[in-house]
């Protein structure tokens, strides 16, 4: 699978440099909403990797190599999850740098909120990938636009209410629960995607 990941990262680094710089800049901006947007925005990158695969008919070539269907599918999940987690880690660094100039330290609430946003982004990824794998980027894009509108509304509501929610003692279990939820959704999504990918075999 390492070869597949290297291919995707090479493709992304060559094609999406400006996109990545934009995401990095967002993480430096004050306020949590831009940071949330950056983490969620990064979930779109696997779509680009899949689009390049489709254009070059890479899947046909990969089927000739010592890669199973699971390897091909899971590489997209690993790519998406690494990007989301990487953006989260980079966001911590960015906000810490910003804190040096504004004399503010990163709080526990910041980390809790960031962890919840990461879990939210992982769930988005888990919903997005089976759609793209089943329908391809061209058809899947339409469904994704509809989905992203719903995500936008959901994300805005989450950000508005997250601070209030975190004040409640019971909701302090939110991070472990959200992480568990994201892991379960991710695992189910990956299984579904592998099945969908295999069913595409003529």
């Amino acid at each position, binding site marked *: 699978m390492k*070869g597949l990941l290297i*291919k995707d990262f090479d*493709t992304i680094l060559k094609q999406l440099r400006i996109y990545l710089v934009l995401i990095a800049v967002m993480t430096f901006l004050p306020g949590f909403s831009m940071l949330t947007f950056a983490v969620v925005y990064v979930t779109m990158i696997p779509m680009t990797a899949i689009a390049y695969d489709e254009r070059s008919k890479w899947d046909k*070539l990969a089927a000739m190599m010592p890669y199973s269907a699971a390897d091909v599918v899971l590489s997209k999940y690993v790519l998406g999850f690494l990007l989301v987690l990487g953006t989260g880690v980079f966001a911590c660094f960015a906000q810490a740098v910003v804190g040096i100039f504004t004399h503010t330290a990163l709080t526990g609430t910041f980390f809790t909120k960031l962890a919840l946003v990461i879990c939210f982004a992982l769930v988005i990824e888990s919903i997005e990938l089976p759609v793209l794998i089943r329908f391809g980027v061209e058809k899947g894009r339409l469904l994704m636009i509809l989905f992203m509108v719903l995500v936008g509304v959901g994300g805005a509501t989450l950000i508005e209410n997250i601070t209030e929610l975190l004040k409640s003692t019971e909701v302090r279990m939110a991070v472990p629960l959200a992480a568990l939820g994201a892991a379960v959704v991710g695992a189910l999504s990956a299984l579904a995607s592998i099945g969908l990918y295999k069913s595409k075999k003529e």
Partner: protein
Amino acid sequence: MNAIEIKGLCKSYNDFKLDNIDLVLPSGCIMGLVGENGAGKSTTIKLIMDAIKRDAGEVLVLGADNRSREFLSLKEDIGVVLDEAYFPEVLNARNVNSIMKNTYKNWNEKQFSEFLTRFSLPLKKQFKDYSRGMKMKLAMAVALSHDPKLLILDEATSGLDPMVRDEILDIFNDFTRDENHSVLLSSHIVSDLEKICDYIAFIHRGKLLFCKEKDRLLEEYGIVRMTKADFEGVPEEAVKGKKVTGFGVEALVLRDSVSSAFTVERAGIEDIILYIAKGDK
């Protein structure tokens, strides 16, 4: 051991059927897979690699069932070049090296680099700026750089200039000097196949019309040119295809079934294929 053994292979689509293919490629040999566009050559290759589902039949590759778990690791020993699938277009040869280094356990960086030099392929040029010939050469370099025992090439020489084609055919010849190495090569360019193949398999409209040693084919078949009146003396079972013109008849015949009174000329592989495919036209 046989490199490839196919028995009763069938695959149906709405408008096409690959029908009951039996084919054996012995180790150490080069087999040419010939057929018109849409005859079923690429479908056969995909079925050999289990890239598509078969309806019936059996496929053994390098001794293993291609549906077995073992086959996934056996792909390490198979180099494949496809007609229509490439690496993502923003990548370059250097990227391919790092991808393949992490794909094949036996990846040979030095050999890949030597092939790039031999084929005059630039290291940093993106594939979107490659010609079709360059893409095929790169695919060939990849297929040959992980110490494969079997090469499977789908229309690999089409789009290449004659000099490069000749060079690649020499590479295949060198490759099969090792008796454990074999090549299955599909091509429209019959002259290429005639030059290097030990066996020729001819697929026509989804059916395998023959799979024989090239030398035997050349011995078995011949061409006769004669008047219509003389042609009536040729036994019907000896005629495998004919062309009737205003000047007479030109036919592909089985040499052994024709009287020595007739002059039988040498038939090339292309003649044999064309006459058999066209039949009595």
